[in-house]
């Protein structure tokens, strides 16, 4: 019995000791947790601060770069407008020269064509002097061969084009009839 009591007493002692140990341990754990939390908070703040610093630095760099680029663009634009203006002036000048050239060409071309026409007409009339009828007859025969060719193809035409083609052929004949009236 004594033994039992002894064991019970020991048990109580142990229980108390255990409770004290648990309590101590909890206190230690709480302390440590708190300590850790504080540390995390502090580190977080440090990281945040560091990030902010870095971000500020990057932003500043970007702003500087942007200013540089804008300056470059502005400079480029200025130069471009200056060149453009110069080129437009040159173009205007070229256009003026071209117009002068064109007018002069047209005048000369007309003169030249008139001269050629006169020469050809003169040569032709010399060559066909007294044979105008024969020349017109010959030209007509060639034209008539062409008319016959076109006429032969009339069967292949769709109906809506049929009358138009007949009118066209008839008008060619008519125009020759008028030309060849001697």
């Amino acid at each position, binding site marked *: 019995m004594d033994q039992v009591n002894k064991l019970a007493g020991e048990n109580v002692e142990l229980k108390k000791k255990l409770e004290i140990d648990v309590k101590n341990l909890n206190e230690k754990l709480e302390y440590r947790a708190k300590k850790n939390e504080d540390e995390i908070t502090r580190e977080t703040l440090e990281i945040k601060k560091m990030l902010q610093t870095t971000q500020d630095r990057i932003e500043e760099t970007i702003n500087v770069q942007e200013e540089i680029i804008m300056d470059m663009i502005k400079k480029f634009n200025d130069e471009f407008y200056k060149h453009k203006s110069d080129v437009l002036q040159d173009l205007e000048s070229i256009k003026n020269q071209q117009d002068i050239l064109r007018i002069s060409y047209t005048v000369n071309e007309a003169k030249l064509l008139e001269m050629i026409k006169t020469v050809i007409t003169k040569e032709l009339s010399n060559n066909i002097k007294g*044979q105008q*009828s*024969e020349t017109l*007859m*010959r030209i*007509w*025969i060639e034209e*008539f*061969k062409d*008319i*016959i060719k076109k*006429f*032969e193809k*009339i*069967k292949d035409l769709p109906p809506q084009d049929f*009358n138009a083609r*007949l009118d066209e*052929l*008839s008008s060619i*004949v*008519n125009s*020759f*009839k008028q030309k*060849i*009236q*001697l």
Partner: protein
Amino acid sequence: MKSINEINLKLAVLGEGGVGKTSLVNLYSGKAFPTIYIPTIGSNIARKEYKLENEHIRINIWDIGGQRSFNPLNPSFFANIDAAFLVFDLSNPKESTIELQKAYLNHIKEKSPDCVVIYLGNKSDLVKPESFGSLMNNLNQNHLDENPLIFTSAKTQDNVVEAFELMIYKFLKKLESGGFTTQFKNIIPSFLNLLNKKEEDLTRVLINLDSIDSSTIHMKISPKIRKKVIYDSIEDINNRIVLETPVISINNKLHLEKIKTDVIKAFNENFKFIKDLILDIKRTPIDQLLKKIDATSSDLEVLKDDFEIKLDTVLNLESRLPSSEFENDSNGKKGGEV
């Protein structure tokens, strides 16, 4: 608006050179009888129109030159012919009738089998009474009874218009019997009414070789001629003299110029015909369109050849025309035929 039926009749006038084809056509189409003989170069086209109440009959007369050098037997001349006069010279019937039978009639039968054919014995004014016998023999020997026969004289105008009218009448008869009775109802009475003639008046000019002989042929020839040959002016007498000398001098510049002018004139006269030929297609009923296009195409080819012949002739004449330095010597000292 009342619709008018257009009837186109392609009438060919065929025969040997110099038998009087052009004179017959000229007389019918209202032109003067030629004062000198000028061969037809290639072909000439004359037109005449009869305007009936419901129909317009347009006669396209193809006067085909009979000179061998212009190839009158060119097969294309014989295509799509509705009617043909085969003309021969009554004053010299032997050769011309044989040729008509052998060449012209056979070509027509081959190329235009439905063609209405009438023989015209022209120059009836030149048949002398002493030649009646030989004329009858020739006509009988050459079997001219296969088709109707009419004696004509372009010079005295005997039976010329009547022959053309009879031809149209026969063509209309054929048209009527060809299944177009409804479409061309009353066309024959209308035509006769326009002419103010009866059928007997038209057929009266026909020669029946079975009921005629050398003793009665003069009744078909002589009386009318005597009635009409009247030269009432100096110009007519001069013309008569020229007519009896049909051969012209190639050195006579005036004659050559006249031939050239005539050829160019004939060249130009075909233009209107070509235009109408093309535009006629528009008036063709749809069921006959392809046939009409083929026929027109063939006609255009013939006309093209004809233009070429005329141009060659003009160039040939141009080279024969004496140059101005010889003009004073060009009074026909050296004669020749054109």
